[in-house]
């Protein structure tokens, strides 16, 4: 099958087009704009059926998306960064409606200071909302994940909304060859959406999103969402098998790169994992047994699978491209708690790298590995460290000077 050279944004749009999505409420934000521009064009050209509508904010956009899905349509929307946070209240609301829409987040670091390049504090702010999450590394994976997301979200064992994450610039505006399947093949993989749990028909009146009073009722509905989310691991794996059969590409809830005999593992997510894989190759060339674990399905959190992949290693370094200010790396904490009850477990080191799109150079990977080896040998584990180089620091000092900041 021929491959097209397209950006991550266009790959997302292709996923939406192939999924026969009915409805796309939108609101622009860099670097997501290309997705909605592409879709708007396809609706206007009659290539897609249904409706594209520009809303007045992300808050409205996600409300409209949720409401349309609660009515019975297949819905897509996309945002980034400030937009996701602007809609955050609604994410929780519509997850509670149990509507299986799909939303792409193009990661971009959060203000302040305002910036354009990616890190993952935006998407991770939604981690407790009930949305499922897949974080992607390549343009192909973006398209494939959109299709898989509908299949998983609409499964009767799940019925929760889905967020697909791709890094701004590093995927959104990066062109790569992508294999675009035919609609017929997609139909085999993804049946139409016909909800029986939430819809609006005059002949079957329904009140949705009804208030509850009292902890037992609230706990019931909230915990059902949690169990449904956990079901998504099994549903993901079945969908991934079918996907592999039909399209010949196989995805796991995590990706294990050169991990078979690895003593040390670097954990990363999203596009910077590619940089990590390159570093792993170079370490391997030197004969060091290093592998990389890429987090893919982030909600539900595949704690069991991660534990199985990590528990017998000597050392694990988590590079978080996010920071919970005052606490540290978000994934580090989640992985550490998954491993906690293992009697044999590796030392675990926490690094913050790539904030605001800052590059992670080989020197920094070298530092990560050295520290990990050292810690596994001495048992002394350093506290969370920021990956930052001497030349970056020199450059930063210059900028501060220009900004009129003088040091004594």
């Amino acid at each position, binding site marked *: 099958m021929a491959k097209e050279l397209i950006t991550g944004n266009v790959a997302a749009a292709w996923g939406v087009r192939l999924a026969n999505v009915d409805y796309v409420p939108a609101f622009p934000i860099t670097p997501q704009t290309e997705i909605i521009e592409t879709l708007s064009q396809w609706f206007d050209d009659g290539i897609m059926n249904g409706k594209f509508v520009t809303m007045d904010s992300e808050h409205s956009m996600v409300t409209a998306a949720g409401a349309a899905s609660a009515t019975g349509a297949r819905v897509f929307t996309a945002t980034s960064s400030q937009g996701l946070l602007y809609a955050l209240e609604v994410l929780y609301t519509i997850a509670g409606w149990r509507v299986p829409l799909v939303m792409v987040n193009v990661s971009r670091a959060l203000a302040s200071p305002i910036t354009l390049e990616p890190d993952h504090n935006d998407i991770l702010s939604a981690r407790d909302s009930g949305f499922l999450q897949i974080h992607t590394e390549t343009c192909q994976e973006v398209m494939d994940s959109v299709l898989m997301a509908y299949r998983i979200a609409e499964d*009767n064992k799940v019925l929760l909304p889905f967020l697909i994450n791709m890094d701004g610039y590093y995927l959104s505006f990066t062109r790569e060859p992508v294999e675009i399947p035919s609609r017929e093949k997609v139909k085999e993989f993804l049946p139409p959406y016909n909800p029986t*749990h*939430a819809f609006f028909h005059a002949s079957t009146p329904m*009140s949705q999103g009804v208030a509850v009073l009292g902890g037992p009722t609230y706990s019931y509905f909230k915990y059902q969402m949690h169990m449904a989310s956990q*079901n998504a691991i099994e549903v993901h794996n079945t969908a991934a098998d079918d996907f592999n059969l039909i399209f010949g590409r196989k995805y796991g809830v995590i990706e294990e790169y050169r991990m078979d005999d690895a003593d040390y593992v670097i954990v990363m997510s999203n596009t910077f994992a590619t940089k990590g894989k390159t570093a792993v190759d170079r370490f391997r060339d030197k004969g060091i047994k290093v592998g990389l674990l890429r987090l893919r399905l982030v909600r539900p959190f595949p704690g069991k699978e991660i534990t199985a992949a990590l528990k017998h290693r000597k050392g694990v370094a988590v590079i978080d491209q996010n920071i919970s200010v005052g606490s540290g790396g978000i994934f580090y904490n989640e992985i550490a708690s998954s491993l906690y009850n293992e009697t044999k477990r590796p030392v675990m080191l926490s690094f913050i790298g790539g904030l605001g799109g800052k590059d992670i150079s080989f020197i920094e990977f070298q530092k990560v590995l050295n520290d990990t080896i050292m810690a596994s040998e001495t048992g002394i584990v350093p506290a969370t460290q920021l990956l930052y180089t001497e030349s970056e620091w020199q450059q930063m000092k210059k900028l501060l000077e220009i900004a009129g900041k003088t040091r004594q």
Partner: protein
Amino acid sequence: MMIRIRFHGRGGHGIKTASRIAGTAASMEGFNVQDFPLYGAERRGAPLTAYTRISDGTIFERGIISSPDIVIIADDSLIEDPMADPLNGADTNTIIIINTNRPHDISEGLAARGRVFLIDATEISMSVIGKGSAISAAMGAAACRVTGLINKATVEKAVVKELTSIGISSEEIIRKNVEVAGTCFDSLPSFEIITRAETSQLLTKTIVLPYEAPAISTPNVIASGNIIERKTGKWRTFRPVINYDKCNHCWICFVWCPDGVISLDDKEFPHIDYDHCKGCLICYEECPIKAITVERESSSNEQ
């Protein structure tokens, strides 16, 4: 020593203030105190609860009181209201104070539920203020009295403090509330409280919540209009009664009943659904020929 007081009232009775009067008074007497109201979705007229804990030590409890030492019921219609269930958790040691004007109907059958004492606070309030509006002061004072721990003068100070804090500025109204509080205080004996450890219900066990398909576990309601199963008729203190000899079936009461509980029969005569009528009395106020009269609710017209 810990005394746990639970107040039951309807929105509008001011039982949050009552619980605070008790709290403030006990605090003034040097006790440790904790008070809090629990609001539901319900508005004016609907049942709600408030709680006061009084102790000579640190209070290591929070939230609702399920085994009260004292239950204060601001309106006797609450007794049979399943939403309010004011006697829940009371035992034979519990002191139960009920505001009622129908002592005979009430006292029967309740003795087994605790040490019951009836008081017509609404009447006391009516005679002092001309309205039944001093219920919070009355109920707060009643609670203080039966603890046997609080002086009358302290209760009066607490009434002034709490009423001022909710924005009542008229000295005369406050003075009259103090008078109502004092009268209620004097009309009750002080009891010996038999306190106990807070016992949570041990009759149940924990379970593992099963996963249920979204068709069940989505928070929506498919039974349209099923709210009719909730009876709001208990909210009434007064009931409207239609005099069919007078009624000229003009539709006015039907049109203006906010809750839509008046229906018209074949001859266009209006009928009030007393299971749901909230007793707002708009119909009474608006009937152009005064064919609707008002009666104070009592158990005798409940059939």
